[in-house]
């Protein structure tokens, strides 16, 4: 009986806040345990406002055997770049370290939250800041054969609200390692560049018959408040006038298969550098699709995303923010992952960027200013138990700044940046 009691307490406590709230294992909400990929059930858990389950009794934790609604996530690893480079380029080894704290979950029958704080070297120095965070109000009306989920949210950057893992914020790649150091010069669509805290948004959504999904939100940077400069320090200063975000999707489950096709996008009115600068406009429009197979012992997830961005720059910004008055950028993203018994798995990701040349925006190639870039990212991982994941990820750059061999103006070729990374991810 002692063994049984131990097993019981492990099940209830050895897993983070939502798992404690529902008492369920990671695989319930995360496909084959591959967080952050959500299952159909995980999507409904989020869209119903994180309210399913039991709220911990904070005043009586000891008596009720409730765990406090706090989780911790540790990531550590070491990366090795193909070639040791000059100071402004990646060194031959880098350490990867991050720690996140989570809280949130069920607050009332209709309100719940997802709150994350992350510490690490965010590029602007070592700090501990607010990461993905949102509070939702949601309701689900089930009457006379109708099923309507609807809700509103407040969150701290666009796409935090998404449930199909087809935006930069919730990509299947756990370690965004290919973005490290010099590779961060990779041109990214503006929608992918939003970091937590640069803007705050509100939005509303509907999910009809677990089939049709529509969402609209609006984001804006704060003009006043405490420590706004601190919040934006890590990821460069961009200030947003009210900017609309939207998402539409059609989804369908057939047996163990789950399908989604949709589109999302945003029109961002951005002051680059400070509020005083005139406004640049970025129009991002993406088509996206997801396929999942969810039946133990096999789990498959696949995503495709094609994003087009057209940007236009104010007259006085030409020559500072960008060399051209207008630019475009196309992003193609494909990934497929498989995991057996929620333990042994792998992921292959392909990402391709093409766009208009701009010597100011894309300074790596000093001859053409090309943003064209392409990489393959194979990864294998092992999850010996659901809280621990060990992985090896290799990033192969086949094109960088429009070049497939030595980049004009540099002494390096794309393959010099190829990176191997070992990582450990522990979440409790």
């Amino acid at each position, binding site marked *: 009986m002692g063994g049984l009691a131990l097993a019981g307490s492990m099940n209830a406590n050895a897993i983070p806040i939502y798992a404690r709230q529902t008492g*369920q294992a990671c695989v319930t909400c995360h496909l084959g345990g591959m967080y952050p990929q959500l299952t159909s059930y995980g999507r409904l858990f989020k869209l119903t406002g994180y309210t399913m389950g039991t709220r911990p009794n904070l005043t009586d934790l000891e008596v009720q055997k409730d765990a406090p609604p706090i989780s911790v996530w540790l990531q550590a690893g070491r990366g090795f770049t193909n070639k040791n480079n000059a100071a402004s380029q990646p060194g031959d080894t880098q350490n990867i370290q991050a720690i996140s704290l989570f809280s949130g979950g069920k607050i009332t029958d209709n309100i719940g939250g997802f709150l994350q704080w992350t510490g690490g070297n965010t590029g602007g120095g070592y700090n501990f800041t607010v990461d993905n965070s949102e509070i939702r109000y949601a309701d689900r009306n089930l009457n006379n*054969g109708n099923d309507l989920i609807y809700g509103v949210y407040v969150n701290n950057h666009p796409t935090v609200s998404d449930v199909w893992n087809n935006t930069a914020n919730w990509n299947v790649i756990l370690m965004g390692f290919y973005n490290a150091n010099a590779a961060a010069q990779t041109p990214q669509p503006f929608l992918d560049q939003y970091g937590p805290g640069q803007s705050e948004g509100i939005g509303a959504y509907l999910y009809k018959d677990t089939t049709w999904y529509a969402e609209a939100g609006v984001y804006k940077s704060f003009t006043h408040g405490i420590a706004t400069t601190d919040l934006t320090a890590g990821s460069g200063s961009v200030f947003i006038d009210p900017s609309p975000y939207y998402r539409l999707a059609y989804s369908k489950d057939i047996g163990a298969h789950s399908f989604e096709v949709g589109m999302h996008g945003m029109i961002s009115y951005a002051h680059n550098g400070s509020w005083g600068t005139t406004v640049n406009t970025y129009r991002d429009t993406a088509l996206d699709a997801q396929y999942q197979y969810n039946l133990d012992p096999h789990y498959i997830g696949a995503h495709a995303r094609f994003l087009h961005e057209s940007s236009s720059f104010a007259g006085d910004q030409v020559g500072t923010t960008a060399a051209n008055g207008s630019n475009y950028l196309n992003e193609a993203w494909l990934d497929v992952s498989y995991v057996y018994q929620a333990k042994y798995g792998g992921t292959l990701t392909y990402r391709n960027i093409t766009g208009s040349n701009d010597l100011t925006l894309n300074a790596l190639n000093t001859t053409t200013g090309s943003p064209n870039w392409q990489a393959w990212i194979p990864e294998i991982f092992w999850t010996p138990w659901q809280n621990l994941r060990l992985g090896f990820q290799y990033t192969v750059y086949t094109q960088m700044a429009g070049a497939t061999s030595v980049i004009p103006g540099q002494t390096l070729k794309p393959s010099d940046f190829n990176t191997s990374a070992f990582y450990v991810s522990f979440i409790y």
Partner: protein
Amino acid sequence: MKRYQALLTLTALSVTLGACSNLERSRDLSNPQVSGNTLAQQVCSTCHGGTHMSANGNSINPTYPNLAGQQAEYLQTELQEFHDQTRKDKMAKDYMWGLSSRLTTEQMKSIAEYYAHQKPLPNPNQSNPALVAAGQKLFAEGVSDKGVPACASCHGANAEGNGPIPRLAGQHANYLYKQLMIFNSDAGRENHPEALERPHGAAMENISHGLDDLQKHQVAAYLQSLR
């Protein structure tokens, strides 16, 4: 700017109003006030089939068993086993232990009654006809030289179940096969009842042990095809 502030106010207002408890549509698994019907619709339906996804209790993904038309007594027994953590197979632990841990007996009874009264639909998953034909024979006759009685003798001629004996007709073959494997692994543990993964399925242990792997697939395919 004004419009943005108005939107913020609206959000704040709806958030404040929502703070009241909402018993009719609650997803709270530790509030005895919430009815079994509400929990079935707001929580159980997420996996076991909801209003639109299909009729209530007819699940889409074979990970989750169909509950529509299931015997109420069987359902209540299983919920109690999840609640007491005596049903110990992996899926029970991963999916059901936590959800059921704070349900009251009354709630579990009412959830069981709710699903017993839902209409079972034909299983949309196709069964292999060759497996079905062999499975039908196993179901009707058993395997006498292995001591496996006819399934129909307990589960009913149409696999409709009876009280504590579950309905199997139209159940997902994948789910049925996995359960047979659990009973199979329980065989031989009779002297260690605490180690049994499905203690209430004791009658099934030797039966499933007497079926080889192909036969398990055959009988599961046949049951899935039953209307």
